[in-house]
């Protein structure tokens, strides 16, 4: 197992190097970090000053290598936009994203498993058809549209039409002014962003669970277990579901990893200062140190989650050995 993990990590290094260079080159070619200075009153001096300060006169390969040399020593550099330490910016942005991810994954997984199992067990029932339809609706629904719709219907409408003192649910940030910690206020803020995440997650993962369960439920050993008189509930949850989780582990692990940097729309709509918003703010200003570090952090996260998925395979199915 350890050898496998080490080998996977080693294979990832050249991939990260090449990808980081391509990302850097793409950013530098596309976004001009001096753009916001070019129309200022003192633009000639300012642009020259910034070009020198940001070392933009050096070749792109040199600039990238300069960043990489610092990164491997733990120095992610300084943001060209805010002059802040990049590692601090990423650390601060990752916490809200991790909260959203945790709760979103928990809710999505719980609902997806329940719906998937029900749909598989009650295949072709009215409930199954209903969940199938809703799943496709969820997959097709753009998150930004659903988010704004949810805010309008569940935050604004009740507040304005029932003349409430405050909204039932909130759409700004993760805490009200003066509040912190895990309390009712926190969950009232969390409800809608988690719902936006869950819509897509539940829709996709429930289909997966349903398909996997159907495969397993039709297997010989399940039929044998039923024939032997094993209770139905035990057959479904102990035998069938456990085998059906193996492909689900892959999907959930990868989807969750990609969401580390993919909550852009949700964070923008709900004013949550997470990784997605950090990415967008940095991208629009061509803030290469932040973007590169962001990219590497997200890539490493994907690799870790991928590895975790492989490890969990072994836990879920003792027959699987990685060597």
């Amino acid at each position, binding site marked *: 197992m350890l050898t496998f993990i080490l080998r996977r990590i080693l294979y990832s290094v050249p991939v990260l190097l090449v990808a980081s260079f391509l990302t850097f080159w793409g950013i530098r070619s596309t*976004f*001009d970090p*001096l*753009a*916001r*200075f*070019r*129309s*200022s*009153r*003192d*633009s*000639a*001096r*300012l*642009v020259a*000053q*910034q070009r020198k*300060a940001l070392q933009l006169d050096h070749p792109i390969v040199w600039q990238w290598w300069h960043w990489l040399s610092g990164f491997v020593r733990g120095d992610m550099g300084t943001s060209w*936009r*805010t*002059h*802040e330490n990049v590692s601090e*910016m990423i650390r*601060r*942005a990752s916490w809200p994203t991790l909260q959203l991810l945790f709760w979103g994954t928990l809710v999505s997984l719980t609902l997806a498993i329940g719906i998937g199992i029900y749909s598989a067990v009650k295949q072709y029932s009215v409930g199954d058809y209903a969940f199938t339809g809703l799943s496709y609706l969820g997959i097709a629904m753009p998150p930004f549209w659903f988010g*704004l719709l949810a*805010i*309008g219907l569940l*935050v*604004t409408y009740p*507040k*304005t039409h029932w003349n409430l003192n*405050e*909204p039932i649910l*909130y*759409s*700004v*940030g993760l805490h009200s*002014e*003066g509040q912190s910690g895990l309390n009712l206020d926190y969950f009232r803020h969390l409800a809608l962003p988690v719902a936006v995440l869950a819509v897509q997650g539940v829709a996709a993962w429930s289909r997966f669970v349903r398909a996997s369960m159907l495969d397993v439920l039709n297997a010989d050993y399940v039929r044998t277990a039923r024939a032997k008189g094993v209770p139905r509930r035990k057959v479904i949850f102990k035998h069938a579901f456990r085998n059906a989780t193996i492909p689900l582990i892959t999907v959930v692990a990868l989807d969750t990893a990609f969401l580390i940097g993919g909550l852009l729309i949700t964070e*923008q*709509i*709900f*004013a949550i*200062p997470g990784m997605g*918003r*950090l990415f967008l703010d940095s991208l629009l200003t*061509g803030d290469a140190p932040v973007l590169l570090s962001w990219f590497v952090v997200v890539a490493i996260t994907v690799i870790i989650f991928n590895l975790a998925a492989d490890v969990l395979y072994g836990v879920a199915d003792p027959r699987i050995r990685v060597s």
Partner: protein
Amino acid sequence: MSDQRGSVRLFACFAALAVVLGAACGSSAKQSGTTASTVAPKHGGTLIIGAEQEPDCMDWIASCAGSSWGTWLAEIQTIPFAYRTVPANDKNTGELKSVPGPVLTGEAKLATTPVQKLTYSIAPQAVWSDGVPITCADFAYTLDQQQHGTDLYDQTGYLDIAKVDCSHGAKTVIVTWKPGTSYASWKALFSGTVGILPSHILKGKDRDALMKDGYSWSGGPCIAKGNKGDSIELTHNPKWWGTPAVADKVVFKILPDTSAEFQAFKSGQVLAIYPQPQIDVVDAISAGGLTGANTLYNSNTATVEALWMNNAKPPFNSTAVRQALAYSVDRDALVKKLFGKLGVDKAVNSLNPYVARDYSNPDATAKYHLDLDMVNKLMTGAGWSKGSDGVWAKSGQRASFTINTTTTNRRRELTEEILQQQLKDAGFEMKISNMKSGDLFGEKLPQGNYQIALYANNLTALTPGLCTLFCSKNNPDTHGGNGNNWSRANVPAADPLLEAVDNNLDESTRMADGKRADDLLATDMVALPIDPLPDILIWSKKLGGPIQDNSIEGMFWNIDRWGLAS
């Protein structure tokens, strides 16, 4: 200049009852107000306000602080300014004036001979939040930073200052210019986006490191605390020598998405917002749902959006063609299409924004209205004739050109679409090619590689700066690539007048010269002003206090006077 430093400027607008300004104030000005200023606030409480953009940093003189939002949210309430720009009255007309800030005892004394010299008198009770008096040393430190500091955003006006003399007492500041130099916009010094910095805290240290992430000291009514990515909080400065702030705390929540911002306001999560004058904002306002809210739309602002023609490149290297284009456009109809839902339906008629109208003729381009007969007369008089395709042509050259503006700006894109149709009717063929802001302002305009462009001239002080934009000496083609006369305007008679506006210390001369220059530029049609970008203020009836627009210092210029409605 363009709409940067102010890349995100939010301007206000409109209300149900529009107040039509008199002709002397400019025919395009339209203003409406509510009576929010009569709602008395009660002391205490917390105000939660929506803000569309977070400042990148809080080192206000550094390159990272180029956004106006930082000034609006935190700088004005924490940094002392020699002069403030404030509304000239309480009638929400948009007029502004410069007044000495609370840090001064009164107007600075200006001497013009033998060199320009300014004498400031600092208020005896003016102190920083740690109790240390604000003194001449702070002015001297600020000047030193503006002249020799690292990573500065804008040094304009400071480089010609010879010295700050503190030998007449700690509370007396004498600023002397170098011989042969002068700076007419001296009220913008130690004010605006620079202010006065505390020497006892910053001198000898890394100013940027100590300020960029926020600072706990203050020379204003509030102390600011930034929660990166989330909010900026203002609380009382216990050592503030003026009237204490009304509310205990003001929290600016950062809401970057316009739709979410409106929902947050409608649901009461924020008590006020100050959105940009974009199409989706106009639509959101006109869609309704703002019952229980006050709205104010102010078109008398510090910004003018205009068509900037390259006077050195065909077909606009001909005055007749430029004038013909001006007569081809129904600017009022265009403005009405953009902002009619807010009651703003008149074009501006000066390249100087409204706030600088004392130095301009607000009706300079009023004569340029849709007149296709005049177009025909001008073009045929210049030797053009219409081809079989209905487009003017001369010596094998068609009156076909490309317009450039910034991408992802729906208001500008809509403007281009309307212009395209209007110009087609007049015999001009206009193609659209939009690009990133950096490409437009960084390459295309400075290099003169364009024919006509659409962008805004935005002032950050009450005095105009048209010499920068139109004086011949600032033509980058003839001055080694330097200079912001991107239009390549060449109106020799206007040059000395525009320079006088910048440098002459006699106000009446500046005003008279500015008006004459405006007329000359309009006759030559160097650029065609189109629309004022209105300021839009929306606030809850739960808010009280003298809420008024301030196109220079932003809606929150006096937020220390706001409170919950009593």
